[in-house]
């Protein structure tokens, strides 16, 4: 490796950067609590970087701070798409600490969890208005997609003209209903997957590259 090739190398890196328009896109993973956002974020991070983003749990509001994984390089058809993924807390309009008491939690812990959850949701909403370049919207396909939170969030995302990919998660469960999700948001493409089992991740990565590349 001579000096010249080194130089050529770094020049081409610089120009790559210049022409590969700016920074990696920041993709927010949004959706209601418990949809499987963190499970998906972890799978993407593990598949392409080797480590995880954060803990997953059946208790809602497990994620209470947005967590970012930067520079995730996804390879598709010989092309590399680099994105930053942001796993966000499940969006809701209400949080009652008493609901956590059912999950075997002491009052102190439940109150703390709910306070953290509210801070996290506020932060996630703020980010959505200011700081994301695209959205992966994750829904639990075993539940009714026609909720107010989903309607509002998709409306907010559309009003900002952000590219959005809707994922119908948990297709491994017998109650999963992909068509119901597709019908709820006919203006967008719905991709089925099981983030837990890793089913249909190839299509998910194809679409991520297509939408956010």
């Amino acid at each position: 490796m001579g000096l010249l090739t080194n130089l050529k190398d770094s020049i081409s890196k610089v120009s790559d950067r210049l022409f590969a328009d700016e920074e990696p896109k920041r993709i927010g993973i949004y959706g209601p609590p418990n949809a499987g956002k963190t499970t998906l974020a972890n799978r993407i991070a593990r598949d392409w970087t080797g480590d995880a983003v954060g803990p997953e749990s059946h208790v809602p509001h497990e994620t209470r701070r947005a967590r970012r994984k930067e520079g995730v390089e996804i390879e598709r058809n010989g092309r590399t798409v680099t994105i930053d993924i942001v796993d966000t807390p499940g969006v809701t309009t209400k949080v009652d600490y008493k609901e956590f008491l059912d999950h075997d939690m002491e009052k102190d812990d439940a109150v703390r969890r709910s306070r953290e959850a509210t801070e996290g949701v506020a932060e996630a909403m703020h980010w959505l208005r200011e700081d994301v370049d695209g959205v992966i919207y994750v829904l639990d396909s075993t539940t009714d997609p026609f909720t107010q939170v989903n309607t509002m969030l998709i409306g907010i995302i559309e009003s900002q003209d952000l590219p959005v990919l809707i994922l119908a998660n948990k297709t491994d469960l017998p109650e999963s209903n992909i068509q119901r999700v597709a019908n709820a948001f006919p203006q967008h493409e719905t991709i089925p997957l099981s983030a837990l089992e890793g089913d249909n991740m190839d299509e998910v990565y194809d679409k991520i590259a297509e939408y956010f590349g």
Partner: protein
Amino acid sequence: MPEATPNVDGGDGIDGSDDDNGDDDGVRIDLISGARMEGLTSMEKIRLILDGVRDGNIVILEEGLAPDEESKLIEVTMTEISPDEFTGIEIETYPKSDAGDQTLLDRLMGRESAQKLTVIGPANQLQTLHKDETLISALVSRK
């Protein structure tokens, strides 16, 4: 034209009485017209709604909020939730039956064709029973 704004600054209610409606057994409903909302900034709208809801009122907006305002409403609601006092809001609008009816130009111009009736209440008092494109059915309870 300007008159008492319901509950802004926790001030005078529409009827001029004490704004906390815990004094009798009723649940107060404020129906706010589009015209009334038109002159307000986003933050004024959000305060108007949340002050009412935090007093235990049901707030009905003739024309709803813009998506950006809905986003801020969620954000501000979250910052105001506190244990045993305020658990947040229940909010319902008709699901958009046809999202394609808003043109790009409308959106660029900030014109909201999606003006839709919106019901907002305290999460612990307002419960949605049923909702579809043409009907919202809700149960309101006293505290």
